């Protein structure tokens, strides 16, 4: 699914430049659930941004679903994002004046799906995260966990190849975090490839593989025995 070869990224800070990623090599297969761990400044967010085409790489190659991602301008990036990627953010990033249903159907709008089909599909995904009854509610009327589930439904709605989750549980309490992880695990079990950036050990243990970053290089890449979040959720 993902093939990264000798990836370098540095940021210009005035006169000096900050070398954030120093030669990353990473292969991720279809259907994997990978946790990217590391302290702040380790480069994990930068890596995710590059994978998510929210940022461009300096050196190396990035292949997504056997498509070489290069020469990204904003228009091209937007199309790839729409086609390949679903995002889950720490702060949910729902549009606050749109209902849950409208939020979920937004990526479909940008895919050019007709209104009726859009609504049906969005409702189906909303139902799959257990929020069909909340379809007409605004984000402000939802709890944190519900908001993140709406965001997950939205990320799923465009049927992406890859889900990118940036600290998906960062703004949630432990119980809600496990509920969200349970949902992510279920989606993964259905075959979706998912990348989770986190700094919480227990969340990382719920993935199938942990990649640890330190100072811009991968220091550890291990498969783990997945802890099922379901056992914490009633």
């Amino acid at each position, binding site marked *: 699914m993902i093939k990264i070869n000798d990836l370098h990224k540095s940021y210009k800070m005035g006169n000096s430049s900050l070398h954030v990623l120093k030669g990353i090599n990473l292969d991720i297969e279809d259907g994997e659930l990978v946790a990217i761990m590391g302290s702040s400044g380790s480069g994990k967010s930068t890596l995710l*941004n590059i994978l*998510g085409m*929210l*940022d461009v790489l300096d050196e190396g190659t990035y292949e997504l679903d056997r498509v070489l991602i290069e020469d990204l301008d*904003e*228009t091209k990036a*937007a*199309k790839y*994002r*729409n*086609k390949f990627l679903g*995002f889950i*953010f720490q702060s949910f*990033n*729902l*549009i606050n*004046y*749109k209902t849950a249903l*409208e939020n979920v159907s*937004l*990526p479909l*709008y*940008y*895919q050019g799906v*007709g*209104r009726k089909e859009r609504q049906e599909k969005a409702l189906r995904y909303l139902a799959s995260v257990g929020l069909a009854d909340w379809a007409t509610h605004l984000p402000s009327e939802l709890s944190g966990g519900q908001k993140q589930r709406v965001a997950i439904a*939205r990320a799923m709605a*465009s049927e992406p190849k890859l889900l990118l989750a940036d600290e998906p549980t960062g703004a949630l309490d432990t119980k809600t975090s496990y509920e969200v992880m349970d949902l992510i695990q279920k989606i993964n079990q259905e075959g979706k490839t998912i990348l989770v950036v986190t700094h919480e050990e227990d969340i990382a243990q719920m993935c199938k593989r942990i990649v640890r970053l330190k100072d811009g290089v991968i220091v550890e890449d291990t498969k783990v025995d997945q802890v099922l979040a379901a056992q914490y959720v009633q």
Partner: protein
Amino acid sequence: MFNRDRWQEIFETIRKNKLRTFLSGFTVALGILIFIILFGFGNGLKNTFKEFFLDDATNTLYLFAGRTSKPYRGFKANRRIEFENSDLADIKQNFSFFLEYITPRISRGASVRYKNEFDNYTTRGVAPDHQYAEKTIIMKGRYINELDVKNKSKHAVIGRLVALDLFKQEDPIGKFIDVGNSVFKVVGVFQDDGGDNEERFIYIPYTTRQSLEKGNDKVDQIIVAFRPELGHAGALAFEKELRTYLKDKKSIAPSDPRGIFIRNVADQLKQNQQFANVLQLIVTFVGLGTLIAGIIGISNIMVFVVKERTKELGIRKALGATPKSVIQMILQESIFITTISGFVGMAIGVFILNNIGETLEDYFIKNPYIDMETALFSTLILILFGGIAGYVPAKRAASIKPIVALRDE
């Protein structure tokens, strides 16, 4: 542009962001409303000005006679010059090319009485063409005619206020009034845009006045109208020739600045028109200023709107919105709002102007109006600039990396 889905998305955004929509719409509507009202007031001011200064015919020369200041052809200085009927005939004959009409004017004060009402008025002995020189408007009856002049008939045309003073509700036509010591028959009532004083005159045939004064043929004043096609330069040339001719006829030294005086309304007209132009300039300037203020207002609102939506735009981009679709969405929304509210503001402004009418006449604003072209043009300008003002921040917002936009709180 005609994508139904996109319109639905825009209507939804508008419906759910009422305050924002109202603010930008209000700014636009207010901008165009103020522009239209100010521009209309400016036009009203111009109307008042025109009424004040442009009442009399503007292609006229007023000829007066006075005393000479230099000896000439055996005459001493300080000789009194007077116009006579023969001057009228001579001017008519010698300057027929320049002339539109010519009329004498002999002004005399007189006590005028009808039954028990009486007052002092100015009578003017005139020829029929005097009506054009003063732009006198006949309300009832008729003006002095050639027959009156020929027969020296005792016919009088009285001003509206004279009729009001002396006759109250009675119809003055055919009634007899005492003017000085003779009896005149009222043949007409007139009004004049020049104001109250102009409506307190009494016009009588100049020949009648002359016969009342022992049958002389003296004339106080001659009013000469030249053909308007001559223009300002032609009028000046005519004036010069006329002066030379009359000085020669009356034996006044060519270098004598006195003796004959000619007041050229064309000069005055030029000054008045210059003043009117300055007024127009001020009106235009004020209008332009308001329009620019309106445009700045819209720009501010647009910057604010886009700034407020930065995060939303970031989310949309992360979900696959291209920069083009982001710009299109913002522009379409802003142009939609500015168009609707622009025309609403315009309609309200025009409606207000139409209903003011005469109510502000005390403030020198008479019949304020704006022509449809100016109203439409300024509205379109505002919409256009609203669009441009929306485009710049929209373009910037669309080029912000989504990752940056998403961090915006």
